[in-house]
């Protein structure tokens, strides 16, 4: 029995609408006025792209939403999607000094959304690429956040960027892999349009590897950026995985990004395996698309899950269930090719920090859909085949020079999930921008840095207050005291 859509169009749209409503003008001004305007603010340090957060917030307070949006996009070209998908609790808002004054931190994410929406709602293009081009051309493989961050920065620095994407639509996981209530795909696509308006070329439906090969790209272009992310969702390797109704989480999420919401097939009783960010997205989306029950099966306890606590709370609020300390052992068929239930076994903490199964503890969870969200595999084999000589670390991550983003192959740069093993959109954008600056430096010998806050000891070469852990003043002061 194949799975069917569960909801009518209106209900589906209402359930999947963006969770947080946008600010009204007054709400934004009031919230902005709470910001203390810290100097060398911790929120900036906590942001991988180093957005001048107090700067843009004060612009909102003084009714300059367009300027605020420009400040955000100058540092992070995907500012609109990051405003929605960033785990702000653990980044900028988690670092807000108001937490230490026992107050609610500034709602930086919502303010950022207010400012960037102002631009997109009005079709404002906040900047344009220089008319004088360097003549340097860069090929970018994949069109996810890392490549988008890289391509935008390259275009703004006067270089030509060509993005190769195997899917029909650009944007990678930003377009296809974000839970709807966080962000609909239209947000990602409008960001792609902004980047396209800077002169970046997108070639979709082109799979790099055979035609063109990476060797051809390296030959034809002055540099190559690998924004290839991670590979397939890990398979579990238990009996029954071949049954109809077993899907991987990314394919499930992609299915309703590509087609209308109300045409998305979903089970009545859904089980999600795993408890990371994607698992939460999958379980909540299944529930919101009409599943009667949606249950996460996770072999450890809530303390060990890699999902953020606010995601856990969200899933609880959506009425999702959690079977902790249980591991799947077999997917049971209904005899007609579909699923009848998931057989699970209890687990318990084992000595040495792992978990072990409990003998004679099997139980069945009735279900007709199993979504696997066990993390994505690295792409070691594919990378080795298309780019011989590219060095990876033991975990299968691409090794890069942390300053320039260049891999162990000359002229080949990399960033995002392929390098960090799977982090946030904002980390990927920051990586992409860093690689673009690394290329710019290789092309021209010029250094590009973020905004620098001068101190009495003069402006040093390093950026401060822009995502770097240690502000410039400490080493500067040491140098000044040493009489250098």
């Amino acid at each position, binding site marked *: 029995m194949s799975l069917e859509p569960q909801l009518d169009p209106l209900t589906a749209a209402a359930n999947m609408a963006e969770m947080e409503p946008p600010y009204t003008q007054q709400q934004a*001004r*009031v919230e902005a*006025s709470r910001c*203390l*305007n*810290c*100097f*060398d*603010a*911790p929120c900036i*340090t*906590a942001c991988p792209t180093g957005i001048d957060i107090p700067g843009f917030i004060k612009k909102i*307070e003084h009714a300059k939403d367009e300027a605020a949006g420009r400040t955000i996009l100058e540092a992070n070209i995907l500012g609109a999607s990051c405003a929605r998908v960033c785990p702000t609790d653990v980044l900028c808002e988690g*670092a807000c*000094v*108001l*937490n*230490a*004054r026992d107050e609610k931190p500034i709602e930086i994410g919502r303010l950022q959304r207010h400012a960037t929406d102002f631009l997109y709602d009005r079709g404002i293009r906040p900047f344009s690429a220089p008319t004088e081009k360097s003549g340097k051309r860069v090929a970018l493989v994949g069109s996810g956040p890392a490549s988008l961050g890289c391509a935008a920065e390259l275009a703004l620095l006067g270089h030509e960027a060509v993005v190769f994407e195997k899917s029909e639509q650009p944007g990678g996981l930003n377009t296809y892999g974000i839970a709807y209530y966080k962000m609909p795909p239209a947000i990602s696509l409008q960001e792609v349009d902004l980047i396209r308006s800077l002169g970046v070329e997108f070639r979709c439906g082109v799979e790099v590897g055979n035609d063109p090969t990476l060797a051809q790209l390296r030959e034809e272009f002055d540099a190559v950026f690998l924004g290839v992310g991670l590979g397939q969702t890990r398979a579990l390797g238990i009996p029954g995985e071949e049954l109809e109704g077993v899907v991987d989480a990314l394919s499930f999420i992609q299915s309703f990004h590509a087609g209308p919401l109300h045409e998305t097939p979903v089970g009545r009783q859904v089980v999600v395996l795993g408890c990371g960010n994607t698992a939460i997205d999958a379980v909540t989306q299944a529930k919101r698309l009409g599943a009667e029950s949606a249950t996460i099966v996770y072999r450890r306890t809530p303390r060990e899950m890699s999902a953020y606590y606010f995601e856990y709370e969200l899933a609880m609020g959506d009425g999702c269930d959690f079977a902790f300390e249980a591991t799947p052992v077999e997917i049971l068929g209904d005899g007609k090719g579909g699923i009848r239930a998931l057989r699970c076994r209890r687990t318990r903490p084992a000595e040495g920090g792992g978990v072990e199964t409990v003998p004679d503890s099997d139980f069945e969870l009735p279900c007709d859909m199993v979504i696997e969200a066990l993390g994505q595999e690295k792409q070691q084999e594919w990378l080795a085949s298309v780019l011989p000589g590219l060095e990876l670390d033991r975990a299968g991550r691409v090794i890069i020079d942390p300053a320039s983003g260049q891999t162990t192959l000359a002229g080949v740069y990399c960033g995002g999930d392929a390098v960090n093993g799977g982090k946030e959109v904002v980390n990927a954008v920051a990586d992409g921008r860093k690689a673009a600056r690394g290329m710019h430096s290789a092309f021209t010998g010029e250094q590009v840095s973020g905004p620098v806050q001068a*101190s*009495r000891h003069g402006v040093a070469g390093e950026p401060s207050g822009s995502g770097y*852990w*240690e*502000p410039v*003043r*400490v080493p500067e*002061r040491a140098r000044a005291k040493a009489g250098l």
Partner: protein
Amino acid sequence: MADLSTHFAGIESPNPFWVASGPPSNTAYQCHRAFEAGWGGVVWKTIGDPIVNVSSRYSAHNVNGQRMVGFNNIELISDRSPETNLREIKECADRWPEHAVIASLMTDTRENWHDLVKRSADAGAKGIELNFGCPHGMCERGMGSAVGQNPDVAETLVSWVMEAAEIPVIVKLTPNITDVTAAARAARRGGADAISLINTINSITQVDLDRLVPEPYVGGQSAHGGYCGPAVKPIALNMVQSCAADEDVRLPISGIGGIGTWRDAAEFLALGASSLQVCTAIMHYGFRIVEEMKEGLSDYLDSKGMATVGELVGKAAPTVNSWENLDLHYKRIAAIDYDKCIGCNLCYIACEDGAHQAIDLVAPGDRGNGPGRIEGKPIPEIVEEECVGCNLCSLVCPVDDCITMVDVETGKEELTWKQYGELLEQGKIDPIPAHP
């Protein structure tokens, strides 16, 4: 509980809180509401030849989302006839015999002054306030601040009033003058029983940047308005203290200007006011605010062991000295409580760019990170040898009691600028070297 009853230049009221002359004291209806809410007195909206007002009339200065930090108006005196106003004054005075109903007056000739003064007393007003301060409209007709700004004219008008007055007379002073004590002395010379200050300050609060016309907007134009509200309190305190300290004034002072809380009230009293008038705060929040003011003042007096309001009056006035008498050898410096510091670095950047470069950002070391601060995030450190004790960091710090100013024992005897000059002249002291 301290006794709040007030005896001001012969005017009795159950407490020192009076509704100032203005829009909240325009009618008997408002007067009743004020007394029901607990106010001790009402100074009626200024009575004179009825005027015609414009629309609009008010405007505000907002700061960081806080509305009406400053406020201004281009409204004139009462637009009702003296007959109506005096009839309503009588109604209020009869109904509230323990309270102070005071008639505010503004007119021109000696005859008219005599007439209004007598009719006010006949209506049962407990006192009269002369409006010599209104800075818009009326001054163009030779009244209001046009009088207050000219001590000789003011003295003459006061003497006319005193010829007819059988109830206490308060002269309300304008701050739009170089030396307010000159006007206060004129009031004294004219025979007034008391002064009240400050009236509103000439102002433009804001310009509408779309129309390029200031507010309040009147058909494509605007006019200078009278400024009041919390923002004017420091100016009012300065002028109240100046009059309180002036040997040639020696009149009871009714303090006006930005009073909205018990704290404001206590400060005016401490600098020499013995009754208090409130308008803008009522226009913002209504008459109900008096409850907090009365309770707060009473609690404060109790905490200071003072039985009456009178014991507080003028207590702080003598500590305001001329600069030349301040001790050059007194020293204080800033101290940061790292357990309270939240890491905003506002002290650092204020001192760095705005003052004396006496705070460094340094590795936290053994001072720890403070609440919520990121490990390794630099913390502000006072460079004690550079700190001049200016207070700036403690003023910008957003956490209560995080940066405090601490007295430093210099081991030096008191030396004022005045003494220093004299000793220098006598060759008994070496010049203090200039700051590098």
